[in-house]
């Protein structure tokens, strides 16, 4: 066995290397477990969203899909399927009905399944296949409108097809909102025979893709640059704003959690390295006197660190893997679907974290260690100066780099790094003033208070450093708790269990009474009725929209399409007045839309309603909770402006699964009423939110555990001096209670100030995160200001007393000999 490894084994026995190894294991383990877990969650979201898209990726075009797109898909080992959707007339039994028809290839759907039923208005069962050639599946509504049943024939253009299933849900179309015509699906092989698609028909062609993520990414790289107008590349996360938003924010949270884990790992490594180096300074000096050359020592330490990295990273990866498996298995009972397997390819992240942490925290210190003069052995009391500024700087830059690698961006690392730098300054300023003040207010050594406060000032620099570490860890904890609570509260508030899941459209005034009666009989909850008139904003403050946006590009939502307009005397549910008077004779505009269009109170809009122009000033601005699933409107007009126009009415209802079949049957009595089912999307969102909330809490728990370990490591790193002082005090006759009180005061004060500064930092960071990362409203968190100092005092004092308990129990002679 080589000298290096013999020395290493002996070091391991003494526990010094073990501390470093432990820090590395914590570091690699935390990042690995969180990284893998986040990856699994992301994969799971993607899969769930893919079910809504019916594929992993999709290319949409207004023209037929070119052959080379499919050839490239095959070349990239991707599965593909095609869907062609259009609106057409269907005939049966002398009745005709405009319907939304999809023709799909046999491989469709690549993800998810059709929901079909053999009974009219049934709730459906999953079927992962397509209609056979010659067959068609029609929605129950279409069947009732055409008065057909299973086995009947329907005509589509020149082709005749046989109805073989009732279509409940098409996996790829659940979010294409406002496709109000009843649906049907047929086999692609029959499409040509229908002859319904002629040049100029409005047809949407989709190429659906599924396969390995890397292949999909390659395909994206290949196709996106060549997409023309009317062609779009879609990924599951772009699917619908809600899911995209929810997942986006959850990913941001998990990324934040991971980044904080990286910082904690860095702190752990820095602490362990500096402890290792401190304890080895004399050893290196002695080895040098015995003839060890700097080259030999360099080789010895490099080999030791390398072996340490291999072992530590190996154990860390294993532990990380085990922890995320544990989290996943804890979650499995709570989640509706099993999480996808973690990808081994993601392990590099943990290994890289370990390697970079070692490079930036261990190596510079080791390089210093090797340079120590052998003369130190003759001057044991001489201070061994480390060039700490450069070492901190390297650590700081390394940590920033790590975070950038981790988040694949600069925003989050920059916010966090700026926050840490700010905190360091604050810690230096507050700590220095407070400790100095504490010292000047006390003198003598008759009480634990005096001794405790005096030692805070005496070891000013190490104490300030320790204060910084405590502050950082508490701050990171507070940030996570703050973000978690507001995210989860926000989500739950967004989507109550009984949020409406169906919209009723095209309701005539005389149908309102009968529909109300029927829904009341069924016990279905329903929102108010809103009259709806279509209109388009054409002029804003004397300038025409066309001249403002000649090519339509960058047009705000308020101007780019025909809007649903309504009137109302009272503010609807989920609406809040921001400015003005809602009952005034003018326009009420939704805040975000107004902001996007650059509109303010008093601006004048002209709206074209069925060829008539209505010009009105903006008299109120309101916010709308789009998540409430109530009928919501960008523009609300005064009743006088709209009452003369023919209006349809709209309402939203919540239909529970048990009520679904009777509800659809009842609504079949109103064949002209359009029903839009958004329940599947909602359910998906609710499932995802539920899973995310649980996952986030578990991740938070993991990070907090790692944080506690780092705190313990930090306390241990300065323990020796404290133990020595405690032992001396006891030799001089101090009672254990006095020593305990002094330690309590010292750690308590460190904890209190750490908690206080952490609260300041966390509040500032939360503001930055909410505004810039989560794109949410900033809010104040009073709880943090209580929690910070409280956690600080309780946790730090407990850990401090726990770690120093030997000084109170062991005879002082033994302690002094050990030191």
């Amino acid at each position: 066995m080589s000298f290096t490894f013999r020395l290493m084994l002996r070091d391991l026995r003494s526990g010094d290397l073990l501390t470093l190894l432990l820090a590395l294991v914590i570091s690699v383990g935390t990042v690995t477990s969180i990284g893998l877990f986040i990856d699994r969650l992301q994969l799971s979201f993607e899969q769930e969203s893919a079910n809504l898209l019916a594929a992993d990726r999709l290319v949409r075009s207004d023209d037929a899909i070119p052959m080379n797109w499919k050839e490239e898909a095959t070349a990239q080992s991707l599965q593909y399927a095609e869907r062609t959707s259009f609106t057409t007339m269907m005939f049966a039994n002398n009745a005709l009905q405009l319907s939304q028809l999809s023709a799909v290839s046999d491989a469709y759907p690549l993800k998810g399944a059709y929901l079909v039923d053999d009974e009219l208005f049934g709730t459906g069962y999953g079927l992962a296949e397509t209609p056979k050639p010659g067959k068609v599946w029609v929605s129950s509504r279409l069947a009732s409108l055409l008065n057909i049943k299973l086995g009947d024939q329907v005509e589509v253009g020149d082709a005749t097809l046989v109805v073989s299933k009732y279509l409940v849900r098409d996996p790829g179309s659940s979010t294409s909102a406002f496709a109000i015509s009843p649906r049907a699906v047929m086999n692609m092989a029959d499409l040509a025979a229908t002859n319904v698609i002629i040049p100029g028909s409005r047809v949407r062609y989709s190429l659906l893709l599924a396969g390995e993520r890397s292949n999909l990414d390659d395909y994206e790289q290949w196709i996106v640059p060549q997409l023309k107008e009317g062609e779009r590349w879609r990924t599951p996360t772009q699917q619908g704003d809600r899911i995209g938003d929810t997942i986006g924010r959850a990913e941001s949270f998990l990324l934040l959690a991971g980044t904080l884990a990286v910082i904690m790992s860095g702190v752990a490594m820095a602490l362990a390295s500096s402890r290792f180096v401190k304890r080895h300074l004399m050893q290196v000096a002695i080895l040098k006197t015995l003839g060890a050359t700097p080259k030999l020592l360099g080789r010895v330490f490099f080999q030791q660190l390398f072996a340490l990295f291999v072992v530590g990273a190996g154990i860390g990866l294993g532990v990380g893997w085990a922890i995320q498996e544990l989290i996943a298995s804890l979650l499995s009972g709570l989640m509706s679907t099993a999480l996808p397997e973690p990808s081994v390819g993601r392990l590099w992240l943990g290994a890289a974290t370990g390697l970079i942490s070692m490079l930036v925290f261990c190596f510079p210190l080791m390089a210093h260690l090797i340079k120590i003069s052998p003369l130190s052995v003759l001057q044991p009391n001489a201070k061994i100066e480390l060039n700490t500024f450069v070492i901190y700087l390297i650590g700081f830059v390394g940590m920033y780099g790590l975070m950038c690698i981790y988040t694949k961006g600069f925003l989050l690392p920059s916010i966090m790094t700026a926050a840490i730098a700010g905190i360091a300054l604050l810690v230096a300023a507050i700590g220095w003033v407070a400790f100095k003040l504490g010292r000047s207010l006390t003198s003598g050594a008759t009480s634990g208070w005096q001794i405790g406060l005096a030692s805070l000032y005496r070891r000013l620099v190490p104490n300030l450093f320790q204060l910084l570490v405590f502050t950082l860890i508490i701050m990171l904890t507070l940030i996570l708790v703050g973000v978690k609570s507001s995210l989860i509260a926000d989500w739950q508030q967004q989507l109550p269990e009984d949020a409406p899941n169906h919209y009723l459209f095209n309701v005539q005034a005389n149908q309102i009474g009968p529909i109300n009666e029927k829904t009341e009989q069924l016990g279905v909850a329903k929102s108010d009725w809103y009259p709806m008139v279509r209109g388009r904003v054409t002029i804003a403050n004397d300038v025409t929209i066309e001249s403002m946006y000649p090519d339509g590009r960058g047009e705000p939502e308020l101007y780019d399409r025909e809007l649903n307009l309504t009137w109302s005397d009272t503010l609807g549910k989920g609406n809040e007045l921001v400015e003005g008077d809602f009952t005034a004779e003018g326009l009420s505009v939704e805040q975000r839309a107004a902001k996007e269009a650059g509109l303010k109170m008093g601006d004048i809009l002209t709206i074209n309603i069925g060829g008539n122009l209505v010009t009105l000033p903006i008299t109120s601005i309101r916010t709308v909770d789009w998540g409430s699933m109530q009928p919501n409107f960008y523009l609300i007009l005064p009743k006088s402006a709209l009452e003369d126009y023919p209006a349809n009415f709209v309402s939203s209802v919540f239909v529970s699964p048990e009520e679904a079949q009777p509800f659809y049957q009842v609504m079949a009595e109103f064949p002209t009423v359009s029903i839009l089912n958004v329940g599947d999307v909602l359910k998906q969102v609710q499932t995802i939110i539920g899973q995310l909330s649980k996952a986030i809490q578990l991740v938070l728990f993991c990070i907090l555990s790692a944080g506690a370990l780092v705190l313990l490591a930090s306390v241990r790193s300065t323990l020796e001096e404290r133990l020595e002082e405690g032992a001396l005090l006891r030799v001089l006759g101090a009672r254990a209670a006095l020593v305990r009180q002094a330690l309590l005061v010292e750690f308590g004060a460190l904890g209190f100030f750490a908690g206080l500064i952490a609260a300041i930092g966390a509040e500032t960071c939360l503001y930055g995160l909410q505004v810039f990362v989560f794109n949410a409203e900033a809010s104040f968190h009073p709880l943090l200001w209580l929690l910070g100092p409280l956690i600080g005092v309780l946790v730090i004092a407990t850990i401090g007393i726990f770690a120093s308990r030997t000084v109170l129990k062991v005879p002082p002679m033994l302690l002094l000999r050990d030191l």
Partner: protein
Amino acid sequence: MASNTAIKVSNLTHTVTSNTGDLTILKGINMQIQESESVAIVGSSGSGKSTLLGLLAGLDVNTSGDIQLYDQIFSKQTEEERALARGQYVGFVFQSFHLLPSLQAIENVMLPAELKGDKDARKKAEVLLEKVGLSHRLTHYPNQLSGGEQQRVAIARAFASNPKILFADEPTGNLDEENGNLVIKLLFDLNQSQGTTLVMVTHDNDLAKMCDRQLVMSAGQLTEKAL
């Protein structure tokens, strides 16, 4: 240099930089120490004895002048070369023992031989520890040994590399009389039996008198004390 000259110092000056400006600790020292000689360097605290010892052993580099240990001229060497020279020629015994706390007594003694890549390090260490009367303490850690025992381990370690010159810095400074005497006896016995040159810094007049020569350090100057 004659073959029996172990150390030759010519015009040695050493200056250190401190907060209050440059401080010249050693001023133009000239001396020679012959092979197998035992030499005590005495003087008051702060007179520069330990600094001189450190420079003689190549632990630090002097500001000007030359120090020659056999064929090694320290002032012209890199730290790498000086370390090799220390391993080859020099052994140390310190006032505060300086055993590695994480190593057992036997492992501490094995270190110098291990650094040279000697395969028999363990066997040699056992023999040395037996010579210093600690064969029953091989696997004890330094904090499990008394001060006298620790210094005996340090002496065993110092002789483990078969040094030509042994430097001792106040070897009995931290010991009681009984242990001090035991350590001194060991030091001189081994010095004689192995033909080692002994250079010792001490406050202890009795100890100094046991050496062949005494050099007195005073205000950075070295003078020979007449015996």
